[in-house]
Structures are given as C-alpha cells and as structure tokens.
C-alpha cells in the first residue's frame, strides 16, 4: 500500500503541488466576490410589493418586473431596450465587416500601418466621455442634429472597431496560411479564397467579434450620453432612473438584462459548437 502510494507520487504527473490548492482557493474566493452582489440583486428583484431596496425580503412578487413593462410609468424601458438592441445590431454588423477586412489587410506591412495601429490603440484608450464630447462638439459646429444612428453610432464604432481589430489579430494568429496558399495553387480566385477558405475557417472567431461588439455597444454609456440626441438607449435610461428613484425596479432590470446576456451567450456558444461538430464530422 505504502509502496504504491509512493510510486504514484514520485511519477509526479498526477500529483498536485500546494500552489494548485492555493490558487484554486483564490479563484473560488474571487468567484464568490464576483457573484455575491449580483445574487443579492437577483434576489431583491423578486422583492414583495411593500419591500425596499435592501433586505429583509417582504414576501416575493413579480410587481417590479411588471413595473418595467408599464409604459410611461417607468420612463420607457421597453422602448429604449428596443433602440439599444437595434443600435447594437447595426454596430456589430459594421464592426465585423470593417474589422475583419482590416485584420486581413494588417497581415502584411503597408505604408502607414504603424500609424493606423496606434490610431486604433489611441481610440481604445481614450476616456470614453471625451470621444462623445468631441463628436457632439463637431456636430454642433457643423449645425447637425445629434442622433442615435448618426453621432451615437459613430461614437460607439470608435470603441468597437479597435476591439474588433485586436480580436481579429488573435483570430488570424491561429490561422495557418498554407490553407490559403493551397487554395491559390488549386486556382481559387481572391473571392473564392475569402468565401470558401478564410471566412469558414475564421467563422467562430468572427462570431466572437460579433457578440463582443454587441455587448460593448448594448452596455455603452459614456460615449453615447452626449451623442444620442433626444432618444435614450437602455443604459442612459437606467442611469436616469438611478438618480430619480430607488426601488427594486432597477434590480429587476438588472435581472432581465443578465437573462438576455445569458441567452445571447448560450445561443452563440451553441452556434460555435454546432460549427465545430459539423467540421469534425466532415
């Protein structure tokens, strides 16, 4: 018995060092820290009709969720949600098209590549409100009306495009160029290489960029607040609610938006897995 135990640990491959347990505890503590407050708001969003924004729970109910859907009562959450989703879809479609093209362009050095790279870095690290401020100022100087699908769309793109470009770098790093060369040797045209080789192979990464851009845009506050014009997106509406009221409705919105995010992640993971399975079978 003793001998066998020693043999097990001396071969070393399955034995866990003490650092494993230390780091595993750290990760567990971090996850509790990450989810603790979120669980509190999920719970409190089911607060009874006479309850407040803190514990104890006074019964349970769905009144705070009904509150959201009552038009006019609660600012206009459903309407602004619709706007946010529409804007986010548009932003992420543009982000995918533009950043995938740019990622392919960056595979070779070209005159100006360094400058454009640093422009993208600058756009990513620029304090968000200042981007919105600059664009809003520009619209004002030109006498244009700021709007959701003009200035706010542009402001969000300055944030999602650099993200998409850098994500594309990571995606392309893993791409084996010899596939493309093989297609080329077999007589494929540039478009055929793009449509039948590059895009299908890069598809999971491209979906990732789409989802990333979608969530970045959907949550965006600081770039949008000065550029959205008169119609609010969901984060702007939530922000307005925070300063005006304190009721569990805010938590109900949080629970709902989390549920929406979970569904989005679930669906996109499902799609990626489906693609991978189909590929394994092929």
């Amino acid at each position, binding site marked *: 018995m003793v001998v066998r135990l020693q043999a097990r640990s001396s071969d070393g491959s399955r034995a866990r060092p003490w650092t494993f347990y230390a780091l595993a505890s750290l990760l567990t503590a971090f996850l509790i820290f990450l*989810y603790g407050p*979120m669980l509190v708001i999920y719970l409190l969003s089911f607060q009874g009709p006479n309850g407040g924004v*803190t514990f104890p729970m006074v019964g349970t109910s769905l009144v705070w969720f009904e509150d959201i859907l009552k038009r006019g009562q609660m600012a206009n959450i459903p309407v602004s949600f619709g706007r946010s989703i529409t804007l986010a879809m548009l932003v992420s479609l543009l982000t995918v098209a533009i950043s995938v093209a740019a990622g392919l*362009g960056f595979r070779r050095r070209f*005159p100006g590549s360094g400058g454009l790279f640093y422009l993208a870095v600058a756009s990513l690290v*620029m304090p968000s409100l200042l981007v919105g401020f*600059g664009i809003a100022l520009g619209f004002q100087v030109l006498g244009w009306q700021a709007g959701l699908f003009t200035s706010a769309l542009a402001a969000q793109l300055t944030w999602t495009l650099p993200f998409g470009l850098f994500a594309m770098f990571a995606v392309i790093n893993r791409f084996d160029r010899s596939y493309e060369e093989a297609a080329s040797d077999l007589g494929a045209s540039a478009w055929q290489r793009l449509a039948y080789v590059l895009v299908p192979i890069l598809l999971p990464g491209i979906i990732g960029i789409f989802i990333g851009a979608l969530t970045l845009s959907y949550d965006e*506050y600081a770039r949008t607040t000065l550029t959205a014009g008169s119609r609010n997106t969901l984060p702007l509406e939530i922000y307005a609610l925070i300063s005006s009221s304190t009721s569990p409705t*805010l938590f109900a919105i949080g629970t709902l938006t989390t549920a929406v995010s979970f569904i989005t992640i679930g669906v996109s993971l499902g799609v990626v897995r489906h693609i991978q399975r189909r590929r394994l079978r092929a």
Partner: protein
Amino acid sequence: MRLPPYAVSWLQVSPLALILTVFFAAPTVLFVVVSFFDYDRIGLYPAFILDNYRELLTTPATLRVYVSSLKFAVIVWAITLFLGFNIAYFLIFHVRSAVVRTVLFLLCAIPFWTSGIIRTIAWIPFLGRNGAFNQLLMELHITAQPLEFLLFSDFAVIITYVHLFTLLMVGPIANSLTKIDPLLLEAARDAGASRWRTMTEIVIPLSKTGIALGSILVFTQVMGDYFVVKQMSGGQSASIVSALSTEIQAMQYPPAAASAVVLVVFVAVMVAAMMRLVDVRKELAR
C-alpha cells in the same frame, strides 16, 4: 490588372482608417482647438487664449482630483494585477481539462456581460448599513454593530473597480500565458530551478505583453471613469471625467475642452510609458 500587395491592404483597411480619422482623430483635434477659444453665456468665440488652461492648472481642485484618481488607479491596478495574473496562471497551467478551463473562464467572464451601471449599484444593497454583508457579520457575531465605512467610501469605490475590471487583466495575461510552451517550465524544473525562479525568470518575462496590455486597459478605465466614483463615494470625491461632464452640462465647452486635453495628455504619457516596456504591436500583429 493586379494591384500591388500594399494597395490591397490599403483597400482592406480604408473603412477603418476613414471612420477612425473622421470620428476619432478629427473630433480630438476639434476639442484641442476649442480649448483655446473664448466663451460667454451665449456662445463660443474663436480665439487663441490660454485662460482656460491657466484657470484649470491653478485651481487646487484640479490637483486634488488628479491625485485622488491616480491613487485609485494605482491601488486598483495592483489588486487586479495580483488577482488577474494568479487566476490566469491557474487556468492555463493548473487546470488540465480544456472543458473545465472553458467553463471557469466563462464563469469569470459572464458578469462582464451585465451592464456596468447595474454591477455598480449591485454593491449598494450588499455593502449598505443594513446590507447583506453587515447582516452576515452580525449574524456570525463578528461585529456587534454594522460597519459604516463599507458603502459610500473609498473602500466601496475600490471594491467596485476591482469587480468591474479584473477580467480586463485576466484576458490579456491568459492570452500570453497560452503562448508559453509548458515544456519550457518542465525544463526549468529539471534543471533545478525553484518554483519562484521559474516564475520570475521565465513565466513573468514571457507574459509581460499581457501584463502591459491588461495594465493599460485597467489604468485607462479608472482614469476615464464616469460614474463609479460619483455613485459609490457618496460625494466625498469626484473623478476627473465627472468634474468635466459638469462643465459640459453647464455648456462651458472651452474649459471642458482644456480639461479634456490635460487628461488626454496625462493618459497618453502613462500609456506610452507602459508601451515602451513591450512592443505591443509586434506581439499582437505577429
């Protein structure tokens, strides 16, 4: 007709270049210009005056808000770096099953998909005087009275930042750790290197791109923060950007622009210093 390769690249990057030039570079130039303008209650007057800067740089409040933001940035950077590096290291080198690794990574990432505003206010019922944490402490008889410093304090601000931004550290560091060949670590161990030496002489140098990228992201997020300080400090401190937005709301565009220029220069110098440590471009676009 065949285009030369660089012309193909130009075509491919042109939409990106166009949008970043028109909607990022040009507005930035615009607020730099406006920062020298004169203004009154009615409008802006093109001019070249330094009054906006003089006023900004001679107010004690400016220095105070920069010192306080920098203090938050350094503390949050240190905490997120410690957490981010250790978590990334655990996920990449200790977790053996790819499925478990993906699940754990997703667990870290999922809260990131919830609105930052919601995640900020989520701390209020948790940390408040009658909040979940205080009640837990009293239930366990660790404290007799609720702790007052938990909410609406610097402590609450730091906690919220760490909650919001740790993933920005985990992602880039994990990405550079995956590029390290595990055989390298085994070789170091076989050659007699201690765990500590393997860490300081192999793992950390090889992951410095990720560390630099994560640091840049966390640092710029904290310096550009708009509502965490406003919401969680209980009015005790302001952030650079929330002070600036007060000026924008009052339509005082030239002083707001001057304040924006100072912030951009400050952030740019810090980011440039961090980028000097590593060639981010070479690592990213490799």
